[in-house]
């Protein structure tokens, strides 16, 4: 007989260990899946987890890991502040899109001028765009007590329509022969966000993600606002008695997460993606929610979780083309990771007991 016994308080050891355990379980179950598909599970695991870091072409993949992880980490750090305080911004994908559109529009307005000030202006516009889009659910929540989960999520679909209209009409490349899509900003030096050091994948988005991690760490551990955020999440009533304004907290969390998501969109647009196209967004805003929880809402944890997520993407792609694994199998593999993480979370709050209950 297996029983679950509630722990008096959450286990710190398991809090740190469960992500590792989840990864190990994912490897076992994923390996079984790949074996059923007729592939050698050990080769598959090596392709996904080992080759991108230390394999033959790692010189290329290591940089790509940073490129892929940067937007995830940047968005997830912002979201984690709100999640800790019980403020649920589910619409980072929309804020990411609107940030990219606003920043991109500023850059395109200057085309073809040259000037050092253009890119910084775009960065500011990107952050403002994301902030603005996040303020809609934020203000509706504080003024009219609407559900921020629904409003922020549904605004993603509005943002996708804005993106389509921009690619087809407002920001369409006048020299694009009628095809949708803006000018390529990565090829417009004053507005581009190239690799800062050749071959490293390091672009301004990566730098911003690292700064965000440090900023969030200091905020949560050394600053009064960080204390309020943690307090509001753990004991909302106590927070109110100690003078935390719920409205201000909601607006603060939405501001930070929206602006960071907008920045992520802008850096992605001007660097790896290059142009505003109908399919510009590929789900970073949603995946970042997984990254935030995988990283235990802790800035350093999020950094590691973002890199791990990027690894499963890049290794997964490599496994597709080198081993002929179907894309769906890779997606199932990534899904398993979240599944196992949630499943083993039970160990943090519960102790597993074998045998009969004594009392």
């Amino acid at each position, binding site marked *: 007989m297996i029983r679950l016994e509630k722990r008096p308080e959450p286990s710190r050891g398991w809090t740190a260990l469960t992500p590792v355990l989840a990864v190990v379980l994912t490897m076992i179950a994923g390996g079984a899946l790949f074996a059923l598909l007729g592939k050698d599970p050990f080769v598959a695991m090596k392709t996904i987890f080992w080759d991108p870091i230390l394999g033959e072409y790692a010189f290329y993949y290591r940089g790509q890991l940073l490129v892929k992880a940067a937007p995830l980490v940047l968005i997830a750090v912002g979201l984690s502040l709100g999640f800790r305080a019980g403020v649920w911004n589910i619409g980072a994908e929309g804020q990411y899109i609107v940030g990219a559109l606003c920043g991109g529009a500023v850059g395109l307005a200057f085309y073809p001028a040259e000037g050092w000030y253009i890119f910084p202006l775009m960065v500011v516009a990107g952050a403002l765009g994301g902030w603005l889009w996040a303020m809609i659910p934020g203000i509706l929540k504080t003024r009219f007590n609407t559900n921020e989960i629904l409003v922020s999520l549904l605004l993603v679909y509005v943002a996708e329509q804005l993106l389509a209209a921009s690619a087809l009409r407002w920001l369409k490349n006048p020299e694009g022969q009628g095809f949708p899509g803006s000018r390529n900003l990565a090829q417009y030096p004053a507005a581009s966000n190239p690799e800062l050091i050749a071959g490293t994948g390091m672009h301004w988005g990566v730098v911003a993600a690292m700064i965000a991690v440090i900023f969030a760490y200091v905020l949560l551990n050394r600053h009064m606002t960080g204390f309020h955020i943690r307090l509001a999440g753990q004991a909302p009533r106590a927070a109110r008695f100690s003078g935390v304004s719920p409205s201000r907290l909601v607006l603060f969390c939405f501001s930070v997460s929206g602006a960071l998501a907008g920045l992520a969109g802008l850096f992605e647009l001007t660097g790896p993606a*290059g142009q505003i196209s109908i399919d510009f967004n590929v789900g970073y805003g949603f995946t970042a929610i997984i990254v935030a929880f995988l990283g235990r809402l802790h800035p350093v944890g999020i950094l590691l979780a973002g890199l791990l997520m990027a690894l499963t993407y890049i290794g997964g792609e490599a496994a597709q083309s080198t081993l002929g694994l179907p894309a769906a199998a890779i997606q199932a593999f990534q899904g398993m990771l979240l599944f196992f993480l949630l499943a083993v979370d039970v160990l943090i709050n519960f102790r597993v007991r074998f045998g009969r209950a004594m009392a």
Partner: protein
Amino acid sequence: MQRRTLLGTAAAAAVLAGANLAVAQDGPLKVGFIFVGPIGDGGWTYEHNQARLAVEEEFGDKVETVYQESVPEGADAERAMTQMALSGAKLIFTTSFGYMDPTINVAAKFPDVKFEHATGFKRTDNVGTYSARFYEGRAIQGHIAGKLTKTNKIGYIGSYPIPEVIRGINSAYIHAKKANPDVEFNVVWAYTWFDPAKEADAATALIEQGNDVILQHTDSTAPQAAAEKAGNVYTFGQASDMAEFAPMPRVSSIIDNWAPYYIERVRAVMDGTWQSDDTWDGIGAGMVKIGEISSAVPEEVKAEALALKDKIASGEYHPFTGPLKKQDGSDWLAEGETADDGTLLGMNFYVEGLTGDIPN
């Protein structure tokens, strides 16, 4: 700005240096394919994958093919191509319009690797482009649709309002109108190439509005399934034959047949005769095929459709032959004049008689 540009160039050079070291190989020619949808989509990507298999069949152990499916059009596509080039692919087919800039970028870093980009218009020394004259098939489809409709309303599920799709709508409309002067077209834009749920919604909405023939420029069989449920609604297979829905609701189809072209290009790389060029073939060359016209179509309509197909194949008839006017009433083609490829490739207007605006 100069520093940035310099670093960018250095980055390209560094990757290039690495690449030259890495891609040295012998043995079979490695050919890569980047797919926009899953190979089981039953439409666009399915047919490209069939051609990949045909390449394997043709050359046996002289080729090795690799592919990656459902690759988003953007930064991820660039990585997928780079990864294929690094692992030794010498020829890479990038099979969707949205891969255009990524293909050009990656090709610049791997001058020894040949790239073939479907439906684009940017070419370099090692990037060629190819597409098919689907509008020829649309003419035949339009004719059959015009004859079959009883409500005189034909629904059209557009993907994106780009020239290729607009050409198809125009061609189908012109020939439906010739077959049945009372016909009217209702176009909805799905903004996707492959999304069964969205396509099913679009088809259902069109059917509810009284359209009894549904044409589509999206790749799934969801519209066929919706038509089957509604009964008495006709559809056509898109990109692939979709024969599992024959004889009803699928009455015919436009099939993309990439195999001969892929085999030819692989052979050219093997022989060292590959050169960047632009290929745009139609029914005549066999790149566009018309799927069997099913028993749901009356014999005489079938005969007319096949006659039209033969005239297009032989070059005797061009689907865009004047007199034709644009939607705004201005003249486009005079009596007997045919459209030039440049206009067709950049087509961003409806012909006279079509209602609604192109989202543009």
